[in-house]
């Protein structure tokens, strides 16, 4: 053991470094190109933030960013409320939950493109006009199962004896929820909300299909997509970098909340 551990540890370390490189070099390239003064992928001529500045001068991009934030905020609020209650319901009725569990999991892994088509067909059937509101509804549907999953991991660590203690001490169902359950699961709920927000900001294909025609309801990923038709430009790299860093920041906080809440 003693010696072979040291040896096999260094083999393992080398392997880890290689795989991480494989995973992250494309991302690093993307970030570097967004800082490249020359604007050409093959020639490095010094660092600049010009491409980032250019983004903030484009009204199309600013309007897309505004749309994204509106969609993400509203769909997050809806999905968080619905998903949290759903999680509590599922965790409570544990006996029913084998098939329900499967359905919830299925919802998470329905291919986005299938969900997009389904929602589009559905809206068409109801003669629903498309626009920001239809993206909001779609993203809510898309997010509920994820919120539910995150809140449920929190509920798994939740000692249900605490709820019984509250009843035993004379509290009713609503008081118990307000004063005991909600404060305890709150970090998990916030983590879920941050995840939902991130997923909504990043989501492309559902938004694309349910946005309807016209520039008015374009979101950031759709904007990136439409710009890329003319090739990958440094502006696109810059925008992708911003979206990615924004997502990472949100998810960093979400993870921290989830870990803290798991204590």
């Amino acid at each position: 053991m003693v010696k072979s551990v040291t040896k096999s540890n260094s083999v393992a370390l080398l392997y880890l470094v290689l795989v991480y490189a494989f995973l992250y070099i494309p991302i690093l390239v993307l970030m570097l190109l967004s800082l490249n003064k020359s604007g050409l992928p093959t020639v490095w001529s010094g660092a600049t933030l010009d491409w980032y500045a250019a983004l903030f001068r484009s009204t199309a991009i600013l309007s897309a960013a505004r749309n994204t934030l509106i969609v993400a905020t509203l769909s997050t609020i809806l999905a968080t409320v619905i998903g949290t209650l759903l999680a509590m319901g599922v965790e409570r009725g544990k006996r029913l939950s084998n098939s329900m569990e499967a359905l919830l999991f299925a919802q998470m892994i329905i291919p986005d493109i299938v969900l997009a088509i389904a929602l589009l067909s559905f809206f068409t059937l109801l003669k629903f006009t498309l626009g920001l509101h239809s993206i909001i509804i779609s993203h809510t549907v898309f997010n509920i199962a994820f919120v539910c999953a995150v809140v449920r991991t929190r509920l798994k660590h939740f000692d249900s004896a605490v709820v019984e203690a509250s009843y035993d001490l004379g509290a009713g169902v609503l008081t118990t929820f307000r004063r005991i359950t909600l404060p305890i699961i709150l970090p998990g709920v916030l983590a879920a909300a941050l995840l939902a927000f991130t997923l909504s900001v990043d989501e492309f294909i559902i938004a694309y299909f349910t946005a309807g025609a016209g520039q008015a309801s374009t979101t950031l990923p759709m904007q990136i997509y439409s710009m890329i038709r003319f090739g990958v430009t440094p502006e696109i790299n810059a925008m992708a970098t911003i979206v990615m860093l924004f997502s990472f920041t949100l998810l960093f906080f979400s993870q921290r909340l989830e870990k803290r809440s798991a204590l």
Partner: protein
Amino acid sequence: MSNILLQALGLSKHFNRVRAVDNVSVDFANQEFFALLGPSGCGKTTLLRLLAGFESPSAGQILLDNKDITNLCPAHRPLNLMFQTYALFPHMSVWQNIAYGLEMENCTKMEIRERVGQIVDMTQLTDYAQRKPASLSGGQRQRVALARALVKRPRMLLLDEPLAALDKQLRTQMQLELKRMQHEIGITFLVVTHDQEEALVMADRVAVMNRGRVEQLATPHVLYERPRNRFVAGFIGAMNFIPGRVVEHGIEIAGNGFISARTDDLTIGDDVWLTVRPERILLTVERPAQAEAAIEAAVFDIAYLGQDLKVHLKSKAGSIDIEVRVTSTEAERNRFFPGQTLWCSWPANQASVLTC
């Protein structure tokens, strides 16, 4: 009968097809310290939860002061439960945890302050009142859970394995402490435990449970001296079970002949167990002249336990295992060694005969 506080009448609880609690009837008296003792899965916790109102019985009734409370929700029963995990509210301070139950009763702020202050003093939590449960030791958490239940001034306190989460030394200390507290406050305590020593030390009366039923309900002394069946005899303390058959004025043991024993209520010819506690058996080199009951056996293991010695023997005929406890001083006189042949004897009144 005016001394009876709570009655369980024919209580049963089935989960799917498992009878967790099976037709149990028990009376709990005012001011008594009662223990439900049994191995894990014997139904003792389910019985406690039925009494507290967290489960509704499949059959049977629960009466408090002769009034039916079977369908009352936990919040409306004047009983409080101390949970095994303590179930403290992690986001509240010790003080807020204890005050919660009084807030639910809509007590005035002044009354809350006074009653919480009292109980915090009594449970020696004054220095920790503003702390969160996570920063307390196991013993302190246990006291908070106790205080939170007691501040409600329940008619009866239900304690689910109250000492299981503590280490051995603290546990011994808290046994005395709980006993003292119950004596002082003067309300009924019902403790659920799997630890026979804990039950014997604390309780006035003990109900030994197995497979959802009460096997015997008695004082610790009666449980030890006159266990009703094999399960109780084996669960409380150590016991030798010697298989035999009832004859007149005694028991016939295969290969060992006749042993005198009380056989008043027994049918001649029945298979029974003769039971003797390990510490009631005398070990001698010669067969004692006066011995009413004696078996010749060979020592195969001697274990030194400090206070006393545990000598394991196998009878010469029939190879019955016999365990004998000998005090260390006695041991020094006798100097046992493996392979030694000895006589195990006991006064007839120290053995009893069990049929099941």
